[in-house]
């Protein structure tokens, strides 16, 4: 569906990645790591300095002449910093324009329009001019606009900025439904919880390089395998001698154990502790994508320091 072969552009350097059809992929990375550049390359809004980008089986480039009818019909693109809708027109009028541009039959257009306006909650302000809307309202309408023509490939740059929890939930369920119909989505977001909720695959960009790419579980196992177990004991003292615990701390009856989940599971630890103690309360903190990013940043700092010493 999308294929990057040793692509360099601006901060992106030698990026090779293949995003298959029907998968929702999240692109994460700190600010300035090249997330938006990656999306712009994927839709042809930027041309690579080196390497090649193929999208939907064609070289990704801005269409001209007869090509205008090919690639864009299958593509839905939303960039956080680029206006998608005409500000001086109403939301409804903007959608009608898009229906015409994508040559949607009237019946299909209205069916989709009503469905999206209800799901994303922009029906109540559909007659208002886009320039009078709040950020959250505008984003709801923009998301509806890119989904309207039922694209095969959706590229979303920071789609949840300004959205409340209800709208985020609506977007998540819409994307899940469309994914079941074969939609391929690539999302960038600074909010890791948004990405984690919808993405089957995660690509981590670090200083323009593809640092890691795979399923969420795989990334967590590789970069943030450390779980934290907090216990409140009723009686006894745990025997940790045979357990591969990285570190632990105790304050009277409250204990905290840090361990590598690749080496031992929480259940195995708890089973061992229960042989000598009675446990009143237990909680386990699993790492998330934020921890993955932090770990990657940490590794980078360590490498820089190492290089500084030599």
């Amino acid at each position, binding site marked *: 569906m999308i294929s990057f072969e040793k692509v360099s552009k601006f901060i992106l350097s030698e990026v090779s990645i293949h995003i298959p059809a029907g998968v929702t992929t999240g692109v994460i990375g700190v600010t300035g790591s090249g997330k938006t550049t990656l999306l712009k390359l994927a839709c*042809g809004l930027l041309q690579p300095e080196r390497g090649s980008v193929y999208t939907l089986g064609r070289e990704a480039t801005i269409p*001209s002449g007869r090509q205008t009818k090919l690639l864009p019909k299958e593509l839905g693109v939303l960039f956080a910093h680029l206006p998608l809708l005409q500000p001086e027109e109403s939301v409804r009028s903007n959608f009608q324009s898009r229906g015409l541009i994508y040559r949607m*039959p009237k019946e299909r257009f209205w069916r989709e329009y009503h469905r999206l306006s209800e799901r994303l909650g922009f029906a109540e302000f559909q007659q208002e001019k886009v320039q009078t809307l709040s950020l959250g309202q505008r984003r709801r309408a923009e998301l509806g606009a890119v989904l309207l023509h039922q694209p095969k490939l959706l590229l979303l740059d920071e789609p949840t900025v300004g959205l409340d929890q209800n709208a985020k939930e609506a977007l998540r369920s819409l994307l899940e439904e469309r994914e079941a119909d074969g939609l391929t989505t690539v999302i960038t977001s600074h909010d890791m919880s948004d990405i984690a909720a919808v993405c089957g695959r995660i690509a981590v960009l670090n200083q323009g390089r593809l640092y890691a790419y795979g399923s969420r579980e795989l990334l967590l196992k590789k970069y943030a395998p450390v779980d934290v177990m907090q216990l409140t004991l009723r009686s006894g003292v745990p025997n940790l001698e045979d357990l591969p615990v990285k570190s632990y701390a105790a304050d009277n009856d409250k204990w905290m154990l840090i361990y590598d989940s690749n080496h031992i599971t929480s259940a195995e630890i708890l089973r061992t502790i229960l042989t000598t103690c009675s446990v009143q309360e237990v909680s386990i903190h699993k790492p998330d994508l934020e921890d993955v990013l932090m770990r990657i940043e940490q590794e980078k700092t360590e490498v820089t320091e190492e290089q500084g010493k030599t």
Partner: protein
Amino acid sequence: MLTPYLAFAKKSFLNRSAYRFNHFMGILNTILRIFIFWGIYKALYGDRSEVDGITMTMVTTNFILSICLEAVFCVNDFYLPDRINSGSIANELLLPISFPGRMLADNLGNAVFKLIYHFVPALIVSVLIMGIQAPAGIPMLLLFILSALLGYGVLWTISFAVQMCSFWLINVWSIVTIKNVFVNVLSGSMIPLWFMPDWMSGVLELLPFSSIYFTPVQIYLGQLSYGEIAVKCAIQVVWIGVIYLIGTLLWEKGKRKLVVQGG
């Protein structure tokens, strides 16, 4: 189903009708300009019935038709610059529709609105108060309409090419102003080319500006033979082709700049 371009022209037409105050002010502006020119030329002619073989009626017909056509030929010179400044051009490039085609459709919708609601009332008021020369026969009237359409094509392509400068300039206001001055002065709408020295009018008649308003008016007044009309219309077509080609080359270069430099 309407083609997207036709639908956009219709939408542009309907959008204009929403701004009624603006619409009435536009008619008033056109009529006021006609009266100002009438006053100036009346003062210049004084008691004379003609100057260098050009009668007051011919001059009056020239500026009334030119100003009324100007009201119709109202091209939005900031269609592309506004989109480049806001950044929305990037999203528009990804739509399955020709951007120049959409630009033309938007302008044509506006032109049709102005033709019905500005041109016709301003012309009726002017004819009733000042009177204009009748067209030199039905064939000439039809050829006038054809030439006026080609004149619009010339003006639109000039605007299209000028707007392409916005890919390289932050503000195109000054270039658009210069273009408008050239169109106003060299098109013969303010000062008919009849009053220019022979060498100058010879040069100006070859430039694209005179073919916007002056060529249609000359045809209307019956000053050109059929052979001359064919040559003048051919000049209009050639200018449309040449300027459109320049504009298209700049458009492709501008798009290339966007995808290489990122805007």
